[in-house]
């Protein structure tokens, strides 16, 4: 009886019902999510007193001047950006055929197998995977061993001899870091891409062929434009995850700093909260620019 009258009450008052439904998540999002983001933003406009090492709660651009004024910091930003772009491009190139197969050709069972296969690595601890990769990529690791066994030691040496991206071993080079990043974020590219491709009806591809388009033309004119929203969604993942990560650059790769590592270090050992906050703003700004570019290129037109 009570349940019924409550149901009736909610049914007749749509607004109250919606408020009840949305209040908890909105409070959570509003305070915990956006609130902390605003605090972060505010922090970045403070600066640290160099003598006392205390945060001075006065609005200033000093920290930002430090961020973009010091060549070392600019290097860190550019290095992180270059890695994020490279990882995103590689993930897109590797993910596309897999996603296309999953969406177009795989039978029900094969599709389930692929979905589980793509997501399975995400069920394992992130740290375990990163450290496992360090072992795989080490000088005495299985990859080096297998390449030697195949007589490709020379190729690996030549690859590692490339300036900047090379290094003494895969595990201590940017190439190795790149491999681990691509491995880690690949599922985040495959899944939205496969979802976007699944929504493209078979008849559109047939119509394109029917009107005289060779497979390459159908791909460029129909498949790719309709896959763009998925590609955009996936690349936002790979791009932002790479921009913010600090564990992979710490465990694998060359000694150069990345944005995430700087955030970690500045708010921790260095105790410079404003600079850490300013570094945290970098990925947000870069992603905003990326989204604006993607939008201008029409990535969301087919949504």
């Amino acid at each position, binding site marked *: 009886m009570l349940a019924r009258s409550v149901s009736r009450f909610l049914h007749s008052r749509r607004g109250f019902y919606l408020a009840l439904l949305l209040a908890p998540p909105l409070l959570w999002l509003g305070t915990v999510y956006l609130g902390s983001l605003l605090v972060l933003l505010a922090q970045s406009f403070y600066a640290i007193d160099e003598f006392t090492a205390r945060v001075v709660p006065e609005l200033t651009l000093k920290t930002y001047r430090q961020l973009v004024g010091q060549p070392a910091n600019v290097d860190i930003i550019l290095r992180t950006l270059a890695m994020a772009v490279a990882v995103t491009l590689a993930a897109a190139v590797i993910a596309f055929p897999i996603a296309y197969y999953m969406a177009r050709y795989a039978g029900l069972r094969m599709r389930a197998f692929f979905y589980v296969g793509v997501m399975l690595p995400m069920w394992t601890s992130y740290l375990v995977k990163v450290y496992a990769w360090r072992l795989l990529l080490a000088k005495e690791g299985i990859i080096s061993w297998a390449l030697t066994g195949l007589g490709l030691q020379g190729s690996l040496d030549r690859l590692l001899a490339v300036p900047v991206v090379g290094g003494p071993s895969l595990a201590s080079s940017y190439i190795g870091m790149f491999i681990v990043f691509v491995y880690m974020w690949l599922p985040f590219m495959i899944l939205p891409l496969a979802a976007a491709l699944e929504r493209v*009806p078979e*008849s*559109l591809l*047939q*119509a*394109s*062929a*029917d*009107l*005289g*388009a*060779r*497979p390459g*033309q159908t791909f460029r*004119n*129909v498949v790719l*434009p*309709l896959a763009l929203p998925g590609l955009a969604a996936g690349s936002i993942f790979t791009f932002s995850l790479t921009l913010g990560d600090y564990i992979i650059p710490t465990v694998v790769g060359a000694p150069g700093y990345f944005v995430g590592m700087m955030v970690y270090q500045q708010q921790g050992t260095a105790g410079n909260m404003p600079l850490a906050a300013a570094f945290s703003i970098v990925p947000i700004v870069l992603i905003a620019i990326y989204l604006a570019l993607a939008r201008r290129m029409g990535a969301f*037109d*087919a949504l």
Partner: protein
Amino acid sequence: MAAIELRDASRAFGPVVALDRVSLTIAPGEFFALLGPSGSGKTTCLRLIAGFDQPDSGQVLLDGVDVTDVPPFERNVNTVFQDYALFPHMNVADNVAYGLRVRRVAAAERRRRAIEMLELVQLESFAERRPTQLSGGQRQRVALARALINQPKVLLLDEPLGALDLKLREEMQTELKGLQQRLGITFVFVTHDQGEALSMANRVAVFNAGRIEQLDTPRALYTQPKTAFVAGFVGSANVVESDLADRLTGRAQAFAIRPEQIRILTDGTPPAGHVCVEGVVEDILYHGASSRCHVRIDGGALLAVAQAESGGAPSLPALGTRVRIAWAQASAVPLE
């Protein structure tokens, strides 16, 4: 020379035989219908002609040339899809011009010809719209314009009117027929709607279980069905099996009799040359132009009898009454 020819074409999907050694020839300029229930093989047949699918055995010929292994983008055939398959990321003009774009026709020229095609279907003012901003009937016309821009020799239409409501469907039937006569190209369309096939096509192939049951003109299909399936699928018919036929007419040959050929006798004597039988009126369905009585005849079979609406006094017998029905022996169509 035949515009389209299928020679012993077969296609199976796993254990399901979709098409079983089908042969057919379609002449240039024909308006040809592939008619049948779902799963009868008519759509598979269309896909073989378009090139979206290859037969397991047999051949497909266009203009006398074997195109069995020629991909769709090299066939001079265009298709109007059941769901129209308009590209959602292009506007109407770009959709229509697509066939020219992939043939690398200059932008200005393809724009001009796209507008020309849109004029043909009276949609020139919609050139800048997106397909999602159009109604079903308008999308259908865009699909038609897009398929015709490459000036194909053959236009294939897959259930072209299936998604339209009744009134629009009747308009489009007239329009499609007019368009086909003006362009003079071969139209092949797939439908499960026998009324559509009869009213639009010059010739109809009736499909059942992967085979062509009968290939004939609409009139011949209706008046001279060869099998019980065709008699029942094209229009409605009473199919009288051979043992009942034996009792009624003295000949053990199954036959079909259309409901409108059967009369309810009011006076005692059946005319000469008529078969006469008694039964009980079990059901009466009012259809507007006519009514249909189901008469359970002695021996158990149920026959449908159509009575034209007289507009005045009710000419129908009451439910449950005993009536005598009769039909001219000559109007019964013997079946295989």
